[in-house]
């Protein structure tokens, strides 16, 4: 069952920018592109843990602020020669409102607790 909760409004995020959402599985970065698309990915670069929310957004990609790895916001995969991926999270738009599926977060958190 999905549980869509509002995490903010489109205008809360600058175009070509990002904001963070705190969750039990760590921070999630929510991006807004120049074309007003929104994407959510794990706020942690698989290379050295850089906060991707702080990177420069270009098209539907972000460049990590620590060592310039580039990630697709849509698939979470590293671009170019780098290999790695971040987890992506589904978002829904309802007009200005941006919604995130809390049940997916809880499921991920539960899976992590089980694994530990």
């Amino acid at each position: 069952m999905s549980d869509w909760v509002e995490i903010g409004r489109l205008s809360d995020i600058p175009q070509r920018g990002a904001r963070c959402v705190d969750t039990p599985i760590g921070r999630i970065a929510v991006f807004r592109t120049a074309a007003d698309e929104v994407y959510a990915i794990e706020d942690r670069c698989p290379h050295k843990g850089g906060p991707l929310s702080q990177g420069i957004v270009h098209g539907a990609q972000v460049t990590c602020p620590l060592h310039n790895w580039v990630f697709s916001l849509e698939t979470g995969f590293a671009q170019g020669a780098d290999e790695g991926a971040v987890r992506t999270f589904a978002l829904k738009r309802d007009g200005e409102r941006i919604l995130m599926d809390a049940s997916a977060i809880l499921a991920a958190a539960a899976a992590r607790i089980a694994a530990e």
Partner: protein
Amino acid sequence: MTQKLVVVGAGMASGRALEHLFEAAPGAFEVTLFGAEPRGNYNRIMLSPVLAGEKSYGDIVTHDAAWYAENGVACRFGETVTKIDRKRKVVVSKGSETPYDKLLIATGSAPFIIPVAGKDLPGVMAFRDLDDVNAMVEAARKPGAKAVVIGGGLLGLEAAAALKLRGMDVTVLHLMGHLMERQLDPAAGYLLKKELEGRGIKVHVKAQTKAILGDGRVEAVALEDGTIYPADIVVMAVGIRPETRIAVDAGLYVERGIVVSDQMVTSDPDILAVGECVEHENVCYGLVAPLYDMARVAAKTLIKEDAAFRPVETATQLKVTGINLYSAGDFADGDDREEIVLRDASAGVYKRLVLKQNRIVGAVMYGETSDGAWFFDMLRKGTDIAEMRETLIFGQAYQGGSPLDPTAAVAALPDDAEICGCNGVCKGKIVSAITSKGLTSLDDVRAHTKASASCGSCTGLVEQVMKLTLGDSYNPAAVQPMCTCTDLGHDDVRRLIKAKGLKTIPAVMQELEWKTSCGCAKCRPALNYYLVCDWPDEYADDYQSRFINERVHANIQKDGTYSVVPRMWGGVTNAAELRAIADVVDKFNIPAVKVTGGQRIDMLGVKKEDLPEVWADLGKAGFVSGHAYAKGLRTVKTCVGSDWCRFGTQDSTGLGIRIEKFMWGSWTPAKVKMAVSGCPRNCAEATCKDVGVICVDSGFEIHFAGAAGLDIKGTEKLGLVASEEEALEVIVALTQMYREQARYLERIYKWAKRIGYDEIRRQILDDKDRRKAYFDRFVFSQKFAQVDPWSERVSGKDKHEFKPMASVGFAEAAE
């Protein structure tokens, strides 16, 4: 048996529905048509040409009295339906009741009026019907009358262009960053703005309306940023909302619009609805094509034939004479998407196709739109374009074209565009020297024109001019492009920004024919710096094109925390400052404190959320940002000098502080570190800095182009000056020359080596006029740069940067 059909709303959707109905089943219904306007159906989307004076009302009437009579329609124009009584199946208007068997609601939409003070003043109007048009035409009769249009969407811009044609002084206020943001990307929005401004229409983007001012009648519009625009009329064109009041009162199911099925039937089986007042599968429509589809389906449903309305892709065109733009589909970026961008700077053309799995999903075109319908057709049909991928962007008529010409941007320059800034040589002079003197090599051109003979940063451009003039016989040396978004090198881009007067990132990308729509993490910060440097007063810094350190004014560390370095002028501090730092370290549990190589104190491991509070506390002690994160002036390191040292020859500490106070806040291509030593023993290590001063008895030796990082290099001596005054002027002028010429991220020592130490000496020491001009330009730019970024943020600027937007998935949040 004849049924009674009552239609509420005499607009384009219901008009089209009636046409279909009478054609398919003449005489099946006895129709009564109510309309709030005192006239029949006219082509509302042609109101813009009427407002512009290009058409008359008569030209746009779709159904005249004869048509209504012929089809036996009882017209009740100017009569508003106030109520639907579903139980008795009658509609109520002005005290009379009209019975129906079937009811068609087509009440359209109402303009959205933004709720600001003064919105009800006379002179504030919408752009919806003929009465609005007549009121605007009337207002435009007054000579010199001023119109402010709120809303830079389709309707607002059509109104603005038309009012301008009527001779009014027109300003468009638009809330978003670029015009028509729902249909256009920033690149096309830039071209549109440029075109409108060329017609004399003022365009103010990111304009938040605060209030409409006036005493008894509208007089001006005030914005949140303090701007005030005088106005005789204010046209609100910020959007529409479905007109659903009678449907709500009648208890029909209404969300944003009146909810209808695929058959256009509302929650009451005898009531249908079409047009802008309806909502179908969560979508309300405002463009005419889907409304006509609804009309066709509603007519079929009324005569009990099968039909279904399906959501459709819509394309947008702006109906302003002389402006060609076209937008269709979804043009957002995405990883599984590719884009093809074609820019022709000289013709002002921008075309962008967004592809997904070899199918067109979006198209934006500006300047040249003749292939719009062709692209749109393939978009709707999902045509596989793999076969024509290479030539697709050139359009239908052009299959099999030549590759793009890399010299196009230079070809588009006018003859009087300056190519060589050092020697003031324009394009025309180079071309005429080549042709009249038969020049064939770069050295010849340099010898005869002096173009690129000084700093050499315009070499690439001079070579492109040569290639244009000499044709394929000339092969310029390969230039390293800035990034994969362009074929131009940094120097070419810098020269062209000046020569073409480009003042925004979208302007640079369009005029220099960028190959991507949004740039990348390499070119965007560089362009932002070039624009900040070249147009300090006019360019609005693009925050999202800055690296994180310059966005939050602290240094990001490996664990995502930040380090904070307050400015400590000349490396001098005192007990009060040290105490304040100690207090901040205690209060925020800052894990590490370190003295830097530049004689400053670094607090490491500060959490991002704490930054504004840390700055607030430091600010109370008098600290400002140390810019330890900036591509800008970092530190001026000093020794104690003649105040204390038995060898000191001058007040090196005082000069260091003076330089730092004069130059802090300036942005430079890469970081700039300076030092002042009070004697040749050089305790401040000035001879490995970007700029260093060695004080001697006779004055001040100015050094530059040292390095003590990736490379180690002693400085070059620029020269000796006698006074502190002169030392400051030389250092500032040198820095400004570097600011204007270097490539982004190029340190002074690399720049200086590239253009030659002698050339720098010639411009800064020998040529006093040029030195003064560099100095003056630096001073001018400092007027806009010397603002403490920390105190701005303590006061609330960019506060969104420092706080998470939300929490999700914690126990309490999931309840």
